[in-house]
């Protein structure tokens, strides 16, 4: 599990809270810190052999960050890695982002257990379906 903060956006409280919630649910969470680029996020996911990548964006750059990350993941052959995210994202953008390859977006107000439950289900489904490790 890789949790990243992308772009010029210093607000990492949300990402840290999610990282902590996932840790407490038994995940091994790699937290990358601030100011990641799509390239650095994908390089991390590749080296860590991550099952999933979560990105928090609060800077209104969500369209760019998520679509570029999804594109870079496909380019590096990480099609089977789950991309999800959260942050301040207008509901109108959610469908477009999901078309770009984001599996799920959690908007403000989502509870920790909700994220955990979705992720556990998504990871086990992914592992069952593919070569995932």
């Amino acid at each position: 599990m890789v949790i990243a903060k992308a772009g010029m956006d210093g607000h990492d409280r949300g990402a840290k809270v999610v990282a902590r919630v996932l840790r407490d649910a038994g995940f091994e969470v790699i937290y990358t810190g601030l100011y990641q680029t799509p390239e650095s996020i994908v390089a991390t996911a590749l080296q860590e052999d991550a099952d999933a990548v979560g990105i928090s964006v609060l800077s209104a750059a969500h369209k760019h960050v998520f679509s570029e990350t999804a594109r870079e993941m496909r380019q590096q052959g990480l099609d089977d890695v789950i991309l999800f995210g959260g942050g301040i994202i207008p509901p109108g953008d959610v469908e477009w982002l999901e078309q770009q390859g984001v599996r799920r977006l959690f908007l403000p107000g989502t509870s920790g257990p909700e994220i955990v439950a979705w992720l556990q289900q998504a990871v086990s489904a992914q592992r069952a379906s593919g070569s995932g490790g």
Partner: protein
Amino acid sequence: MEGPEEHSSLAALLDRALAGDGRSAARLMTLLESDVDATPAIMSRIYPLAGHAQVIGVTGPPGAGKSSLVDKLAAAFRAQGKTVGIVAVDPSSPFTGGALLGDRIRMQGRFSDPGVFIRSMASRGQPGGLAKASQNVVALMAATGKDTVIIETVGVGQEEIDVVRVADTTVVVLVPGLGDAVQTMKAGLLEAADVFAVNKADYEGAERLVKDLELMLHLGSSGSAWSPPIVKTIATEGSGVDQLVGSLAGHFDYLQGSGEYLKRRRRAAVAEIDGVLRGQLMSAIARRVPAFDVYASQVAERKCDPYTAADRILRESGLTAEGLG
């Protein structure tokens, strides 16, 4: 045991990793961490190829600046044209099994450099400052062509010094402000040092710490021809890093020139075989003695002592007819 199909996919994964494919190497690392059946086949393929890298251990108490120092060391080795593997170990929660691996936060400058491969590992309950598979992951990094492999331990106290069995050269990172800790740490962590880094050297008490270490080294002359140098560093600014790199090179030269390298390799080999044997014996016993849990209950209730239980388990396993006698 694996079927032939699984076996061939593992062989293909090994081929790709050894040809330089990072994703395949990452997959193999996951297998080394989590698949005891696949591990022997991976190791028998990579072990002969893993001998050329210099392996540097970085250890020290939590918050000493190990990750920042590793980052700066990696940058310095890259500047020398060397490729670098980093294995960064952080603790797992003993309660949930989860882990928050944050060493990468200090290594952001390396993420986009294809000459650096960073792998985070959770300790998964292993004592000693490393994860169980750390040594094997280090070997894989070496086998896939990394010139230098740096292994960063969890933040350690006094005795978690397994890293000395994995690393050629061990750096112990200390910081001022640990009070009289130097005294109490004499045995254990401080003895693990081939090189000392006194980090946060701009903080109050750094000079005093250096003096304490000098005195300790002077008093405790180990009879070794190598006396650990003490290097002052400020990892966040990169100051002292060049001297540290020089000391690491000096130690590596010493190891090879003095024959100490082979002696250490031999000691490490004994420990490695020991670890594998224990694991294999335990799993063989667990397979052959279904009543293991019954013995555990008897010992827990003090109806039987652990020595008698072990003796009976060993007899029952059929591994030896005589038991422990």
